[in-house]
């Protein structure tokens, strides 16, 4: 019997688990697999399209009292972010940024993306610095199919940044084929590979006088900060990473430091446990059953946190007939009325698609409610993407809302 079982190993679930473990509870994270952290940028987005995210969040909480930010409250947002930053600091992977001013970081297409906090390995890419008139080099490897310097540089130039593109020669390695971002990240942690890379970058700097160099976010898995520091010394220019397509190395790093912290605090993580049904007595959740090899496995706990995500994470699923359901505990969902209202005609319209705001409605303590506002379970809290009434991708609050609600659930 655990004190708390957290279902789901994404950002919100890990934050809730860390919070509970810190209080001395016996905690298990039970998850189907790694969460959506591995797909994201590795940055902490609080709120896009505003200069001051915290002010924007305060405003939003007034206008939308059911938004996860409003439910979590400003103190939980600030404390949760502070905790993640402290974990990063202790792990030698610090985050820089501000609650009150968005950074603008280049994407792998050369768009400028607002985010509140970024790992130190990306911070030199802030557009306000890049626009200082000094030349920037965007460099990659032809062998890496997830990063193409010429278009990034061209789009940055069109936005007033003096960027040029170059392809680097892949340093000698025993590996012959298939250079994924993860493979390259591991190679970057080898001194000889990195030395060769550093020499090439230095040669470009000597020739082009670059003040900054943007590289794909593949500069190490466990020791990225050192890799970047070393390459900066060798190249004689500032270096910044640019997040690549999933699987995102920077997202893996963020997950890794949280996992390390949870294990350090005595928490446990069980992956491969796909929760399929629940057992309850009245409004108390007693046990859940996860899929296992030849039978179901029964897990018991006093308290529960549901952090399975929305449609992206797999916590909410749709049938061909147009019904949406919550996969782990079969909780009631708030969804658009009828399938006809699920989508907008244009994929990249400004508002996003209503279906992706489907989720669980909760009370002020994040406990699940049914359509008639009755509490479903008194000992369950719902966090992150599984919550109804917001679009974390379009609002640019994916990490922020996950951290705020996850941290809140860990403290209550």
């Amino acid at each position: 019997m655990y004190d708390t079982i957290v279902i789901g190993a994404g950002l919100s679930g890990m934050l809730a688990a860390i919070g509970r473990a810190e209080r001395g509870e016996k905690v298990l994270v039970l998850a189907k697999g790694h969460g959506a952290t591995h797909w994201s940028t590795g940055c902490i987005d609080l709120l896009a399209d505003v200069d001051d995210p915290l002010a924007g969040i305060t405003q939003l909480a007034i206008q939308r009292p059911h938004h996860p930010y409003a439910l979590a409250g400003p103190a939980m947002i600030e404390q949760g972010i502070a905790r993640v930053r402290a974990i990063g600091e202790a792990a030698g992977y610090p985050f820089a940024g501000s609650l009150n001013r968005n950074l603008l970081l280049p994407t792998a297409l050369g768009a400028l993306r607002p985010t509140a906090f970024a790992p130190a390995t990306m911070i030199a890419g802030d557009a306000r610095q890049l626009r200082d008139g000094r030349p920037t080099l965007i460099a990659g490897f032809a062998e890496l199919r997830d990063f193409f310097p010429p278009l990034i540089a061209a789009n940055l130039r069109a936005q007033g940044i003096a960027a040029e593109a170059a392809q680097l020669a892949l340093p000698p390695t025993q590996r012959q084929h298939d250079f994924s971002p993860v493979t390259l990240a591991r190679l970057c942690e080898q001194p000889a590979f990195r030395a060769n890379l550093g020499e090439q970058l230095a040669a470009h700097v000597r020739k082009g006088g670059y003040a900054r160099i943007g590289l794909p976010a593949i500069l190490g898995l466990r020791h990225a900060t050192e890799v970047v520091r070393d390459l900066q010394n060798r190249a004689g220019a500032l270096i910044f990473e640019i997040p690549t397509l999933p699987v995102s190395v920077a997202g893996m790093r963020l997950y890794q430091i949280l996992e390390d912290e949870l294990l350090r605090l005595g928490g446990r993580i069980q992956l491969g446990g796909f929760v399929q049904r629940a057992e309850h007595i009245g409004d108390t959740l007693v046990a859940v059953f996860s899929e296992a090899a030849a039978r179901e496995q029964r897990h018991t706990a006093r308290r529960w946190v549901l952090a399975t995500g929305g449609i992206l994470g797999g916590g909410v699923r749709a049938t061909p007939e147009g019904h949406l359901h919550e996969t782990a505990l079969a909780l009631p969902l708030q969804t658009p009325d009828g399938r006809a209202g699920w989508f907008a005609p244009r994929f990249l319209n400004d508002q996003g698609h209503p279906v992706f705001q489907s989720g669980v409605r909760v009370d002020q303590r994040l406990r699940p409610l049914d359509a008639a506002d009755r509490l479903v379970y008194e000992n369950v809290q719902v966090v992150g993407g599984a919550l109804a009434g917001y679009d974390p991708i379009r609002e640019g609050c994916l990490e922020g809302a996950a951290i705020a609600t996850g941290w809140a659930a860990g403290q209550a």
Partner: protein
Amino acid sequence: MQTLSTDVLVIGGGATGTGCALDLAMRGIRCILVEKGDLTHGTTGRYHGLLHSGGRYVTKDPQSATECAHENAILRRIMPHCIEQTSGFFVITPWDDESYGDVFVANCHRTGVPVQEISVAEMLRREPALNPRISRVFEVHDASADSFLATHSVALAAREYGADIRTYHNVVDLVRVGDRVVGAIVEDLRSGERIRIDCTYVLNAAGAWAGKIAAMAGVTVTVVPGKGTMVAMNHRMVNTVVNRCKLPSDGDIIVPIHTVAVIGTTDVHVPDPDVFGIEPEEIQFMLDEGEKLIPGFRQYRALRAWAGVRPLYKDKDVASDRDIPRTFKLLDHEERDGVSGILSIVGGKWTTYRLMAEQTVNELARRLGNTQPCRTASEVLPVPRFEHRAHAMVTVSPDPAAQTPHYWLGKPLALVESEHAAGELICECELVTRDRIVAAIDAGAYNLDDIRRDVRMGMGPCQGGWCIYRTANLLYERRCADGLSHTHANEAILHFLQERWKGLTPVLWGDQLRQARLDELIYAGVLGIHRLRALAEPGGGLVTQHPAIATEYVQA
């Protein structure tokens, strides 16, 4: 204005138009073909990929059945690389009229469609996923065909014989002097330049758009655009084409093709071939029909829905569009309407494209005094360069032992592994390597949709999540020296994402809905493409937004 001169101007780059161009060129008749989009941009690129045995038409349209049976044998010979020998079943399910079985067989014999009844046990041995409650099974010579590849092969052969084939050339007007059509004004959609083409004959092979072309000559051709909706499922749950043994109806056929199985089709009269929608009810109906053939059909992952418009020619009043004959007709407008210099070839189907071309060109040759015989039934078609040997539908080899009748799902993967090309995969769902994408670009693909038609990039489960980004960058790197700028590359991505979205929304549930959300995370989140909207514009030869080729689906 630049002026070109030729014997025959063919309008339409589908199966019929390219087939006519090849036949004309083979006989030494000069011809220019203009197509407003890419080759197969119209109906040819939007059908389920069935090489008809003729079985579907034995009762309602016997002439069409006979033509299909005849052409079926010829196409297997001249384009073996485009045809997978799946064979086909007509099955009587508990929902069908048992007595139609004997009628079907008798009509097959009458129309010359080869047929053989097999036992239900034999059917289940070969296709275990089929409904065991099926009561009778008739085997016919159905097959699946790659209509994109076939049309490219025909066009390649036509070019080798001297035909001038021009894609993204839209006919703006026909030039008429008195009662004679003497040429056309066409616009090159990539450059915006207009060209005058003088010709002895205009051949209107515009399919569902033939009425629009005929109107430019001042004559009326009533083409009923019959919308057929299809759904691609991400499994080859059968390796044999499966038809319901009944009169043709909606959702009564499943065609295994490449990596997917396609269920089709509906038949809905639409007023305009460029404006139509896909209704959720159509999809639900087809899934229900699919369940009758393959229990559990709904549980498979649906990849995408799309619709094509049949070019049905309406000669006289018929009750329903399904009753319009599926055979083709060559219209001589001089005899019919008193306007000379123009012929229209209307109706028909992909399987009979070659026969349509033969009869059309026979008539044109006679008028032009050309006495060369038709040779399209005997000359084997060439294979385009972007079609890698491993990805062809089947292995074509002079050595019978090496010849494979079936598309083998593991073959492309085995090749990628043997060449250590896993890191070179740009489209990981359909196993398309960097080399093939670059070859398609170099062969003249102008935008991402062209590349998709050539190599299947973006057609798998992720619907372009990873490969749109990669392919757009390859297009940019390959063509930036020819004037393709970053604004065009951005536009290419935005346009293709929207093109995919149109076909996705009707089938988004389960994993495919989750996938769409992941694609949104990638493009609106990680890459922020929507932030580059101000830096996106059509141009650079992309031809993504010209009204002549825009097919904007109506929101259901």
